Each structure stands twice: as C-alpha cells, then as structure tokens.
C-alpha cells in the first residue's frame, strides 16, 4: 500500500515541496564546514528532479488531484490541490531553486561566509517551499500562511548582509510594501469568505457574484497580487530589494516570486466565469504602462542589479498585458485573441523565469569577480571572464526578445494577437503593438548597454582589470539556463504543451477552436536558419581571412594614439540620449561643476537616477501619515504596568459590550 502511495506523482510533488522546505535544516544543526551546504544542495537536486518530473507528467496528463489534510484550526478544511495552473507555476520554482542552490556553492560558499551561510541556505529552501505551498493551497487561510512564509523568508534572505545601511533600508521598504499587499489580500479573502461562506477556494467558474462585490474583489486582488508582482505604481519596493539581495536570492525573487502575484491573479480569474471586459482593459493598460516605464527606468540605471530589477517590471508588464488581452478576448468572445494573449503570457512566465535568473547569476559572477555593482566601473571583463561573457550575451539576447532565443517566441504570440485585431471593427487593442515595439527597442538599448559596459572595451577601474572567472559550480547552472532558453527559442513546440492545459481554465472561449494556426514550425526553421547561416558565414570568412595577412594594432582613436579606459564611453553615456528624451519619465540627479576659463580646474561629475514615485510621492505621504499617527506613539511607551491596564480596560469594554 505504501509503495502505491509513493508511486503517485501528486504525492511525489508534495514530498518534493517538503524536502525543499527542510533542505536547509541540517545546515543549522551541523556547525562548521561545508557539509550543511552540500546536504542542502543534495536535497535541492532530489526535490527538483522529483518535483519537475512528477509535475510535468501530471501537467501533460491534465489531471487534477486534491488532498485534505486534517488540522484543527477553525478555518474549514485544509485542502491542497494540484491542478494544471498550480503545476505550471511549480515548474519555474523547482528549476530556479535547483540552479540557485547549485550556484550558491560557488557564490556564497560556507567556507568564506561561515556565519551567514546556514541561515541563507535554510531560508532559501523555505522561500521555495513557501512558494510551492502558495500554488497548491486551496484554502484562503492556508494560502495567506504560505504567502507570509514566502514574504518573510524573502525578507530574511534579503537582509542577510544586514550590517549595511542600504540593505536594511531596502529590507524595511520591502517589508512594509509586502504587508500593505498582504493587508489587501486579507480584505480579498474575507470578501471571498463572505460570498462562498467557506474559506475553501471556489472551483473553476464557481463564483457567481454581481457587479459591486466583484469590483471590490478585483481591486483588492489587483492591489494585493499586483504589488507582489511589481506592477506600476506598486513596484516601489522591487528595485532596491532585488538589487541588495545576494544574486542567487535576487534570481529567485525576480524569476519566481514576482510570478506568485501573477499566479494569484490567474487563480482569482479562474473562480469567475464571466469576467467583465473592463478588468481585461485595466490589466492590459497597467501591463503596457509597467512595461514601458519599467524598461525606460532600467535603461537609465548604473547599478547592474537595479537595471535587472527594473527590467523585471517590464517583463511582468508584458505578462500582464498578455493576460489582459486574453481577458478582453474572453469577454468579447474572440478565441483567437484569447489564445494568443494567454499563450504569450504563459510562455513569457516560463521564459522570464529562465533568462532573468540567468542574468542575475551573471550579475553575481561579475560582482564575484570584480567586487562592484557599478556598470561604469567595469569594462573589459570579457577577456578574463570568457564563459561568463558568453552566458551573459545569450541572456541579454534572450531578454531583448530577439530570435533565436525564447523571449522572441512569447513576444511573437503577443504581436500576432495584437495584429489580428487590426481587422476588427474598432481596433483599439492593436495599439498595443507599437508600444510593445518601442519597449523592445528600449530593451535592446538596455541590454547592449549592460553587456557592452561590463564585458567589452577596456577596464575602467582596478577592480575590473583584476577580475577573475567564476568557478564551475556557478557557470554550470548558468549554462543550463541558457541551454533551456535556446531550446525554448528554437523548439517552442516543447513548451506549448505545458501551457495549453491551462487554457481550458483561464480562457474557456478557446476550447473548440483548438486548431488556431501558430507558426511554430517557422520559428524552428528561422532559429535553425540564423544559426546555420551564421556558422556558414563564419566558417567561410575564417577560411578567407586565414589566407590573408593579419595584424593587431590599437583601436583607432582618431589620431590619438593611446586611448585609455577612462576615456571610454560609459554605460551611463550610452543611455544618455534616451534618458534625455524620456526626461519626463526618468528623472536623474546630475551634479557637475561649471567649466570656465582656458585652463579649468579639476571638476567632478555625479549622476544618479531617481526613484521618482518613492522619493517624490510615497515618502512625503508616509511623513504626513506619520505626523497623523504621532498620538499612537504616546500609547506605545514600553511601560509594562500601563499595558496591563490596557488589557484590563479592553476586557472590561468587551464584557460590557456583550451584556
């Protein structure tokens, strides 16, 4: 009987989540040495293979399994379910957790981080398991518990270097934002409880409510889940949090945790059969705004990890656009739009959880090699860090949405969705296409800047000149992710079956018209053709050049003989034209000395991109709120005997109220 239970893939998935949760525990008990980290990595490998294999086989079989766990809390049954939507989101969790755990062995080894490593490893497992629990929970209270485990584990991971002021500040902003989001979710689940008279999630299309309460639910979900996903303007916590965490943690936060917000939204939409049209419109517009503003802000950054964090906002925006467009298609009975929008969004979820962790790992290996996060202090790393350079290049092409990598595939589906609407009677939806094209153009600027400023040219500082390549334990997971990116870009046929089981739940209008033409074979051919043509040209050109005289010289400096790294075009300079064009959106602080006279004295120049919404809007708002609540501080004075008095008074009032 036991062997039967253990052969059930659904049980295996749950075991994998448990193994994930406890993978860091041995490290807490075994002090000293790398044994704890090794055991955690072993746990991660076992959990990931078990989880991925079972989740993918369940997803392909389109099965739904539910378990009820006995608990004696008064919040209805503790139900856990594995349906296609849950299983789909488990895939990135396990992939990134596996890669991140392997990467940590080189990036945050126990030998050189003796005090922080056990805690980091423990919370890393806990974060992954928390996310796993979020996607399998079918009870509102269980969901909130898992959500809180995830949020707090994320906080402890983020502030692991809490001796730095900047890190503590970022952690606090994150914690406040996460709990404002959680407060909205408390409202959401309370409202849901009101309508379902149970904390259990309603089934697919099982929630029938009228306009006003549905609007309240939607707004609560948008704030609660949107702030976790980082949709603008709820993104304020995201850039500094992702920039200050260790890189493999940023990879997890950016690659997977943001998607939990998207998961929440999708789960909520699956409850309601007839979603109003305006929900889709709101989501699509919010997505396009996030995508455009996110990438414009990313282009102006000079901190490599902040740049990647802002680009996550862009990608989440693209995902939200796809979902919004699919909902518009669902509401207007347009299966083509619903299919293309949803498939584009779902594939982009998978794709972003491959290339964003890859790029954060690359950023980690750059920081590991140079000790700085400033793009303008790097340069010329490509000569000493060949493999990191190659992997970063692949990641940069993938995230810019260029063929033959996977980013292109999901964007192509979205474009097809938009373009198809050009034939509609009133083609408002089609206006998304030029916006997406502009976003793509700015993404190209951003990632040419990222790659060029770090790996190309001459070193701009001593640290960059003496950088060193990352160890194999860091390069191997990066290589795996890049391989998956290329595979997804050339063979989208392999990824599509993972997304298609969700369509029946999310966009029921699609079913019945399953034979929508998607140019999958052509994508494969284009990818193969680019690679083949480039290889052919490279081969013949190499053959040609080998017969010709060859020489090396210094770079042409227009007559100046030895240009140095200090004279090079920096990343900031590279994006300056765009930043000045977008000065209405991207605010920067520039401090420079005026140059006067024929022999001006030495001058300093300082450039910093601003967090406009946080610095100009929210912090002043918080100050006002702080003044308003100053009287509460008088009640909180730390004198225990007065607190006892409060308790007595409260009890007395409650007794009076009851009688």
């Amino acid at each position, binding site marked *: 009987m036991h062997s039967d239970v253990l052969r059930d893939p659904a049980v295996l998935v749950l075991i994998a989540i448990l193994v994930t949760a406890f993978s860091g525990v041995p490290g807490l008990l075994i002090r000293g040495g790398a044994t704890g980290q090794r055991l955690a990595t072993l746990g991660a490998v076992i959990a990931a293979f078990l989880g991925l294999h079972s989740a993918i086989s369940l997803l392909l079989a389109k099965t739904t399994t539910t378990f009820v766990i006995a608990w004696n809390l008064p919040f209805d049954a503790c139900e856990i379910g594995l349906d296609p939507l849950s299983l789909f989101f488990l895939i990135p969790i396990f992939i990134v957790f596996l890669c991140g755990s392997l990467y940590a062995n080189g990036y945050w080894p126990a030998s050189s981080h003796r005090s922080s490593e056990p805690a980091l490893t423990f919370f890393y497992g806990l974060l992954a398991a928390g996310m796993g629990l979020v996607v399998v929970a079918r009870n509102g209270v269980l969901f909130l518990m898992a959500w809180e485990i995830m949020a707090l584990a994320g906080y402890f991971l983020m502030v692991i270097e809490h001796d730095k002021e900047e890190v503590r500040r970022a952690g606090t902003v994150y914690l406040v934002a996460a709990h404002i989001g959680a407060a909205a979710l408390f409202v959401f689940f309370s409202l849901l409880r009101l309508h379902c008279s149970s904390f259990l999630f309603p089934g697919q299309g099982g929630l029938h409510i009228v306009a006003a309460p549905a609007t309240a639910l939607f707004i609560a979900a948008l704030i609660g889940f949107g702030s976790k996903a980082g949709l603008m303007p709820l993104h304020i916590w995201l850039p500094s949090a992702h920039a200050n965490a260790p890189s493999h943690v940023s990879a997890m936060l950016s690659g997977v945790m943001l998607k939990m917000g998207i998961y929440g939204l999708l789960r909520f939409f699956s409850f309601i059969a007839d979603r109003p049209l305006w929900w889709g419109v709101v989501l699509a517009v919010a997505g396009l705004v996030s995508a455009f503003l996110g990438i414009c802000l990313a282009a102006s950054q000079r901190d490599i990890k902040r740049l990647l964090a802002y680009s996550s906002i862009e990608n989440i925006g693209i995902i939200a656009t796809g979902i919004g467009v699919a909902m518009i298609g669902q509401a207007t009975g347009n299966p083509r739009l619903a299919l293309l929008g949803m498939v584009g969004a779902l594939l982009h979820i998978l794709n972003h959880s491959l290339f964003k962790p890859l790029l954060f790992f690359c950023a980690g290996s750059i920081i590991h090699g140079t000790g700085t996060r400033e793009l303008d202090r790097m340069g010329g790393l490509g000569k000493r860090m060949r493999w990191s350079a190659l992997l970063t290049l692949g990641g*940069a092409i993938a995230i810019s949405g260029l063929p033959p990598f996977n980013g292109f595939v999901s964007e192509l589906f979205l474009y097809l969705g938009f373009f198809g609407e050009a034939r509609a009677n009133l083609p408002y939806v089609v206006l998304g296409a030029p916006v997406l094209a*502009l976003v793509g153009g700015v993404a190209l600027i951003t990632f*040419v800047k990222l790659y060029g400023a770090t790996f190309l040219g001459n070193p701009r500082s001593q640290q960059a000149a003496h950088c060193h390549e990352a160890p194999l334990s860091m390069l191997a997971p990066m290589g795996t992710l890049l391989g998956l990116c290329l595979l997804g870009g050339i063979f989208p046929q392999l990824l599509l079956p993972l997304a298609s089981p969700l369509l029946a739940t999310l966009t029921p209008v699609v079913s019945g018209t399953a034979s929508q033409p998607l140019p999958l074979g*052509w994508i494969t051919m284009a990818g193969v053709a680019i690679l083949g043509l480039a290889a052919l040209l490279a081969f013949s050109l190499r053959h040609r050049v080998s017969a010709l005289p060859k*020489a090396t010289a*210094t770079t042409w400096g227009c007559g100046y003989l030895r240009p140095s790294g200090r004279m090079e075009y920096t990343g900031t300079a590279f994006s*300056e034209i765009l930043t000045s064009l977008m000065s209405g959106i991207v605010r920067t602080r520039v401090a420079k000395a005026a140059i006067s006279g024929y022999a001006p004295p030495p001058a300093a120049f300082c450039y910093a991109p601003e967090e406009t919404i946080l610095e100009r809007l929210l912090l002043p708002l918080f100050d006002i709120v702080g003044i308003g609540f100053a009287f509460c501080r008088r009640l909180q004075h730390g004198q225990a005997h007065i607190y006892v008095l409060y308790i007595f008074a409260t009890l007395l009032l409650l007794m009076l109220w009851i009688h």
Partner: protein
Amino acid sequence: MVDTILHLVLVLTMPPLLLGVIGKTKAAFAGRVGAPYLQPYYDLARLMRKGVVISDTTTWLFKAGPIITLAATLLAALLVPLGRHAAPISFTGDMILFAYLFALGRFFTTAAALDTGSSFEGMGAAREVTFSCLAEPALFFALITLTRLSGSLSLTPMLNHVTLFVWWDTGAALLLMMTGLFVVLLAENCRIPFDDPNTHLELTMIHEVMVLDHSGPYFGCILYGASLKLYLLGAFFLHIALPLSSGNSYLDWLIFALSMILLAMAIGVVESVMARLRLIRVPQLLVAAIILTAFSLILVVR
C-alpha cells in the same frame, strides 16, 4: 521556382548597385563625374582580398558582429517580396520576424562597436540604438495599417495588396504612410538628413563611426550588409510608393529593378539638396514619422 531563383540572384547581386547610383546622382548634382556605377563592387572585391587589422582591445564578438548581422539581414531578405512577386518564405507573423531580425543585427553591430573601447564608436552605437528604437513604432504602425487594408498577417499578401486601385480608395492614408516610411528608410540606413555616410568627422557620424575599426573581409561583410538593408527596406517602401504591375512576371522583375534604381536616384537627390540635421533634431523627425504613420492608421479605420 524561377521567381525564387531570380529573387535570390537579385538579393545577392543588386544591392551594391544602389550605392553606386546614389553616388553618381550626388556627383551629378555637384557637377563632378563621380565614381563608376560599379565602384561598390570593386570596393567589395578589394576588401575581400585585403588583410585584416584587429584592435588588441577586442574579443571574439568584434569578429562575430559583422557575421551575425549579415546572417540576420540575409534571412530577412527571404521574407520581403520584391516587386509583384511572392517572397521565398512567407508565413503568419513573418513581418515581426523581419523587424526583429534587423534588431538582432543592430544588437551585434552596436556590441561590436563597443568592443573596441573607443569613445567615438560608443557614441555612434548609442545614436544607432536610440534612433532605431524611435523608428520601430513607425514601422509597426505602417504594418498595422497594411494589415488592416489587406486583412493579412504576412508580408507577401500584405504588400502585394497595395495597388493603384487601393491608392484610389485610400490615397491620403497611403501618402502619409509613405512619407513616414521614407523617413524610416533614411534613418534606418543612416542616410542624409540623419547621418552623412561621407562625412570625415567622427564626432558627427552614426553608422560609419561604429565600423571604423573593421577591416578586410569583415568590413566587406558590413558594407554588403548595409547595402542589403537599404535594398530590403527600399523594396518594402516601393510596394507602397510605386505599386506598378504589368501582369507579366518577367516584365514585373524589370519594373522592380528599374524602380529600385529610381529610388536610389531619389535618395541621391535628397542627399544632394538637404543638409544633415543637427543630432538634437533627429528624434523630432522620427517622432513626426511615428505620428504620420499613426495618422494613416486612423484614416484607414475612421
């Protein structure tokens, strides 16, 4: 089959001729004799025989840049129909691939420029990516308008749909779109008024400054790739500007070749009578192109 072979032959052999025609036109305006029409071919042949000088700052990417850019442009050449014929490859969504292949080429051209570590090349790369980024929405608006007119999601039916009758019906929209696309054509190929291919001041260049350090066969690839890009965007533009058709396939090829030469002369005239814009004005002109193409969409929708 014959059409496919002719397509390939034209794509592989004709693009440098456009540069020759442009040069000759400009020379005629300046009262000079000018270089022979076939000069770009002689240049290419010479570059293929020349040795290579490579900067010691660069990595492998510097050599990969021209190769991947050319590969992407060659693939794009299979997607654009020339004249009234079908392109060798045509599928739903090929216009997106067309636009993104140019973006892939841009990624590698600009990355190879940054690889040299020269400020001038960095400057050119920054201008190239920013201006092309602004040209992108204009191209997409034009594609949307064409999709709406033709009801098709593929370049061949979309472009071949435009005929003189369509001009009769929606002339105003097509005129606006044509103007916008001509701006895109000039900007994407770094012609005057956006960039002066013949200037000798590195500070003001865009495309030429990015490839300063390339030499020999690598530079040959760049030169040919640039002329091919001009050729492809020109062919795209001609579908809207001169949608002439005779009914006879071979005659159509002749019409197409002649109209390409006419386009090259037109570009030569523009380059002769206009000065280069100040860099600060370039984005304004590109935004104007976006607005023109957006207007054409509005006129088509009404």
